[in-house]
Structures are given as structure tokens and as C-alpha cells.
């Protein structure tokens, strides 16, 4: 299962990179969201999958799945949510201000010589 999950994460990363390289701001934001999912899955997978019980302590259970990656991912989810929300509002504002969401239009103008 782990191999499948790693390959899936790789595909998700490829898709997100493809989206991030596009010129539309909305597609870039979607790309970063997918990248978050891919990384979270990868984090979880690297700890090993389904090797024990749910990490709720019980005297009779000797083996649990690794709780550390879960804690890390929980933090990551919240942070990425904050960033995505901010990014989205930024896109909204810049579209209102600049009248475009084409990234190639947003680059700096070269200085006059």
C-alpha cells in the first residue's frame, strides 16, 4: 500500500507543479492546495500505514500507528488553510485592483535605460 501511496503523492505533486506553472492566478492557488494534500499524504505514508491501532491509549493494546506524523499533519493542515485563505483574498484583491489574473501581465516593467 505504501508504494501505491508514494506514487499517488508523486502524481499529485506533478499535477500541482503543472498548475503552479500556469499563468492564471486561480489555477496557481488550486495547485498549491493540491501540493498540500500530496505532502500530507506523503508525511503519513512515511511513518508507515496501518501497523497498529488508532492512537488512543488503551491498556490492552500493545501496538498503535505512529502518532507523530499525525500531529505534524494536523499542524500542517491548519497552516496551509490559513495560507490558502489569505492567498485567495489576495487574488481577489489583486484582480479587483489590477484587472487581470494573468501572471505574465503582473511582472515588473523594465527600467528605462
Amino acid at each position, binding site marked *: *500500500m505504501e508504494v501505491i501511496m508514494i506514487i499517488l503523492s508523486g502524481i499529485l505533486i506533478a499535477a500541482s507543479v503543472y498548475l503552479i506553472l500556469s499563468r492564471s492566478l486561480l489555477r496557481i492557488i488550486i495547485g498549491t492546495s493540491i501540493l498540500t*494534500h500530496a505532502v500530507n499524504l506523503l508525511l503519513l505514508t512515511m511513518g508507515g500505514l496501518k*501497523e497498529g491501532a488508532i492512537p488512543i491509549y488503551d491498556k490492552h493494546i500493545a501496538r498503535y500507528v505512529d502518532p507523530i506524523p499525525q500531529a505534524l499533519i494536523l499542524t500542517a493542515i491548519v497552516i496551509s*488553510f490559513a*495560507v490558502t485563505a489569505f492567498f485567495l483574498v489576495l487574488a481577489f484583491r489583486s484582480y479587483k485592483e489590477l484587472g487581470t489574473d494573468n501572471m505574465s501581465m503582473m511582472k515588473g516593467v523594465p527600467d528605462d535605460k
Partner: protein
Amino acid sequence: MSLLHLAVSLPFLGALLIPLIHYYNKRIHPGYFALLVPVAAAVLLLMSGQVSQSVKWMPRIGLNLDFRMDGISLLFCLLITVIGALVVFYSIHYLSSREQLGHFYTYLLLFMGAMLGVVLSDNVLSLYLFWELTSISSFLLIAFWHHKEKSLQGALKSMLITVFGGLMLLGGLLTLVSIAHTFSIREMVMQADVLQQSPLFTTAMVFILLAAFTKSAQFPFHIWLPDAMEAPTPVSAYLHSATMVKAGVYLIARFTPLFALSAQWIYIVTFIGAITLFWASFNAVKQQDLKGVLAYSTISQLGLMMTLLGVGGLGVYYNNQPVFYAAIAACVFHIFNHASFKGALFMVVGIIDHETGTRDLKKLSGLLQLMPVTFTAAIIGALSMAGVPPFNGFLSKEMFLTSMFDSKSGLFHGPSLVLLLSLVIIGSLLTFIYSVKLLKDLFFGGPPSVDKHVHEAPLLLLLSPLLMVTVVVFTGLFPNILTPMIDSAGQAILNKHVAPLHISHWHGVNPALVTTLLIFAAGTVLIFTYQQWAPIYSVQRPNWTFNYVYEKLLAAAESISYRLNNKVITAGIRSHLLLVFSALIVMTVVLLLQAPLNFGSWHLSEVRSFELILVVLILIATFMVIVAKSRLFSIIMLSAIGYAVGLFFVFFNAPDLALTQLTIETISTALFLMCFYHLPKLSRYEETMPFKLTNAVIAVGVGAVVTVIALMAYGHRFSPSITEYYIKHVYDLAHGKNMVNVILVDFRGFDTLFESTVLGIAGIGIYTLIKLRDSKEVNHEQTKK
């Protein structure tokens, strides 16, 4: 604090104090205070005797003020201080009180101190430090009239070329330090034989040569010196004839016992010197600007000194053949002579400029009756420069030619000897032509075509040049008064005792004398037929000059960096991302190629069918996001991915994650949909095939390298996990049963604290973005319409 250190620090002290004195006391010309400095420094230097004195500065990196006085240093110190005093005196009467005099004397004294430091330093790092300080103060002095465009250009050019040379010097000196393991020049010279065995010897040699050639305006780096003539004339007289431009000559002389063991050094120094001598004297003849003539003449005389040092290096190469030591003696003698007559000539030119208001040779003529005293000074200086007896220039020119003829018993024979002799003889001929032609054009013929009423300059302005030509005549008539100094300087250069030397005017009929007589005859004929052969100068195409090359190089550097900047820096975020991703791919692939792929051993869990279904679902949703044409569809597909990931968390025994993921995904989707109305339509700007293909290749590359790395990492576990500790103590230490929650708020609570902070900051940021606006903002959408 020793006498030497006191002498070197005096000018720096003066540079600090003189603007202050000038600020509080406007009645006395600040030059009189500045005059005290070189006089006091000269006295101190003469009192010190031949010594080595050291003051620790930064011993850990080897930078100490180790000063050492020997023959060659003494000669240069006297030139710097005595000519410095004369130049300061001259400048008192030359510069009007409306100029920024405080600045002028600060720069000049800064230069004087730096130059003393250069010629006294035995420590290579302090030598480099003072060397760069001469470049900087020279830059400031050339640009003294900074409102003139040409001054700024000249200053910039000299700065670029000499600082390039300065950096080469640093490279060369540090290379020597790394071979010899000492910072002292004297100790390096003592291990010359060992140094020569090192593979870095040639590198150090090239660096040092570049440093000396740029500073001393040797071919083809001579182009900065004519442009530096935009400086005030006292500066030209001091820096660009007598002192700074000889720093390169000093450097070559100083390193001769070290490098002259190699034949390349001798060939390069001799021939670059000879080419410079020829080329600059050729160009000097056609100059229409008085200072232009003197600038090219200075370059050519510096070439002459280099040639002599090259031939004198044969004495080191053949170890103890006194016939070649004569070249070193001639060089030292000529350094002295050139400083005396060229300083005087610059001051004379400054006086003519001052009294007539022009330096243009076309407008000036017939000044003999109008300015007889100036004429006297000029004729002595120019005839000495031309090598006419009985002045000192004749003596050093004779010694020069004798040394050149003697070089046939050394490395030079066959074609190289013929080339060398023809270069120096034609160069000497041209020197005679421009010197005498300068006198003829300036002082003879009809009255000058200038507006001013021309009359003789005040005596105080004339005093400095008159004193200098007195030296020219005196050392011309009694040259042997200088022999002790020449001997000790020669010893310092060659690092061994040189046979005592006797200079005499008449030394029998020899090749040198015959050549000189031929030069006089041919030169006189050529001067009077100048109009017939002048067209030779229009043969050279305007594009074939080194100035043109320099300007092209500068323009090319500017346009290349401008275009590079435009291509890379301002090219937009996509090209930056392409660079970053490509670098990631390339670096990973290169690393992976270093070692065979090793995936280790995987502990795999079993695959369940509904997990596979979920995988397929995610793949389909991802594909849909990429190909989606409407924004609503792509947002929904994105949510599908998010929910599927949440389901994975359920399957993989992570209830807290699943809960959070599902909640957050819902909120995100809601947020997307809330903004939906305001968000732009999903535009597909990248519909061209090459664009998509590039993106796809990069994307697949990044995905592949991440997959490979992850697979490799999964198979290797080098140390046991710390999880066991948390599992063991979650209940007895933290009194909780939910391990994830206990880790978040108890074991690793700080993460959670700052994660909450991030959330808060994002909230404030969003609020700011929406609420706060610049009141004067222009609505772009409206202005467009």
C-alpha cells in the same frame, strides 16, 4: 611609534586637520599649512636612516605596518616629499581661493601618505592597502572639478583600470604568501629559488605584472593617463608624472630579484616597456593639447624605465654579470631625472594655461618674447626630455642606449634584439621630435591668437618650476653627486652589492653616442618636414584605438548585464519557478547518478480494494482539475480530492486528521465559493502547445524525483522512532489518552501555539486586505474603461 610611522602618518593627520583649519580660518591659504607636512615628513625620513620598523595592526591575519627604508624607498620618499612640497607651493598660487581648497589639500595629503606607505611597506597586505588608497585619492583628485563631464569620465576610467590592477596585485601578493608562508617582501625575495619551483610562480608573476602595467600606464593599459589630464595641473604634475605612475615601476623593481629568475619576466617587462615607449612617443607627436603631449610623453618615459628594468633583470638571471647592473643604475637615474624635468614641464604648461587661458597648441605661438622666464624653464625641461646635453636627460638616455646595446650578450639576440633596438631607437627619435616640436610651436612664430593680454607669470608661481629645472641643470653638470643614491638604490633592487658607478658626459665614441647624434640629425630634419609626413597619423582608423575597445567593453558589459537582468530578474514568476524546479530536478538527478539506486527493504501493508478505488478517484479528480474549463468545476474537483484525502485518513487510523481535514475542506470550499463571484473567470492563457509541454515536462520531472526519493527514504530507517516514548508515557505523564492531542498540546505545545498565531495573522491579513485601502487609489478597472 617610530620615525617611519610618524612620517607616514603625518600626511593623514594633515588631511584630517586642514579642512578644519580652513573652515575656521579663511584668511590664510590652507596650502601653507599643507606645505608643512611634506617638509616635516622629508626631515623625519632623512633622520630615520636605513631601518626596518614594525607596528602590529592585525597580526592574526598578517596585516602589520612593517616599514622598511632602503635605497629605492629613500629615492621614492624624497621624490614624494620634495616634489610634494614644490607642488603644494605651486598650487597655492595656481588655484584660486574660490575653489574648494580644503578638499583639494585633503585629497592631496591623503595621496601623499598613501604613496609613502606604498614605497615603505614591507608587508604585502599593507602594501596593497596603500596601493588602493593611491587609486582612490587619485580618483578624487582627477574629479576635483566634478561639475565637468570630462573630469568625471577621466576619473572613472582611471579608477576602473587602476583598481582592476589593484585587485590583480592582491591576487599576486596572496599567491606569493601562499607559496612563501610569509607576509614580508624581503623574506620572499630571500627564498626566490624555492618560490621559482612552485607551480603557482607563473600565476603570481602574471598578476604582479598586470598590477604594475595598469598603474604605470603601460601598453595597452595606458589609455587612462591622457584622460586623467582633466585634473588640475598641480595634480598632473605630482601624481601623473612624478609619483603615482612610478608605483608600477617601483613594484617591478621591488620584485625583480624574485621574478627575474624567469626569462618570461624579462621578455615581458622589456618588450611591453619598449612597445609603450614607441607607441606613446608616436602618439605624443600628434597631440594638439599641451597636457596631452606631456601625458603621452610620460607614458613613453615610463616605458623606457620598464625596458631598463627588464634588461637589468638579466643581472639576476645570469647571477652576477655587472654589465647588466648598469641598466638598473640607468633606470634609477632616469626615475630621478624624469621626475625633475616632467614635474617642471607640467608646471610650465600650467603657467601657460593660466596666463593665456588655453592649452591648445594651434592657438599658442610666439610666447618667447612674452614669457621669457617660462621659456627658460620650458627649454631646459624639454631639452632634457629630448636627451640633449648638458642636461640630465642626456646622461640617462646615453646610459639607456648603452644598456640596450649591451643586452645583446644576454637573452636578446637575433630578431628579438633587432626588434628591441629598433623600437627603442625609433622611440627615442620620436621623443626628440615631440620635445623640440613642443618648444618650436609654443615659443616661436607669430603672436598667440588668444583674447587675454599675455604677460609673464608672477615669480611665486614660477618658483617651483625654476627650482626643478635648477636641479635638472645641476645634476646634468655634476651627475656624480647622485651616485651614492643610485648605488644604494641599485643594491636594494638587486639585493646584492653593485660595483660603484661613475657617470661622465664624455665616454668615448661608442654606439650609443653615434645613435644619439643620428637621432639629433634625423629628428631635426623630421621636425622641419612635419607637414609632409603628418598624414601618417590619419592612416589609423578611428575604430582601431584602445579607447574604442575600452568604450566598447564598457558598453558591452552594461548591455549584457542589462539584458540578463531583464531576462532573468524581471521575467515574471513563472520563469523563476521554472528555474527553481529545474534546479531541483537537475540536482537530484545528479545526486542519484552518483550512487546506484538502492530502495532498501519495504515493510508493506496489505492493499484493500476500497483504498484502490479511492486512489483511482483522486487520480480522476486531479485529471479533471487540470483539464477543467470552468472554475466551478475545478473548485468542486479540488474539494473531491480533499475529501478523498480525508477518507484516506479514516482508513489509515487517523481520526483527528480525518475530522480536521473534512472540516477544513468544507470551509475552504465554502471560501472558494464565497469568493466565486468576485474571482476571475478561469482563463486558459497557456493554450499554446510548447508552453504546456514545458510545464508538463517539468511537472513530471518534479513528481518523478520526489517519488524516487520518497521510495528510497521509505526503505531505509537508520534509527528507531521516538514514538515509543510518547506511547509509553502518554497516560502516566500527560494524563491523556488521545496521543495526537497530547502531542499537540502537551509534548509539543509550542507548535500549536505558533500554528494558532499563523491562523491569527492570516485573519488579520485578510481583514487588512479587504478593509484598508489607500484613499487616493485609482480604480484601474474604471480608468481602463
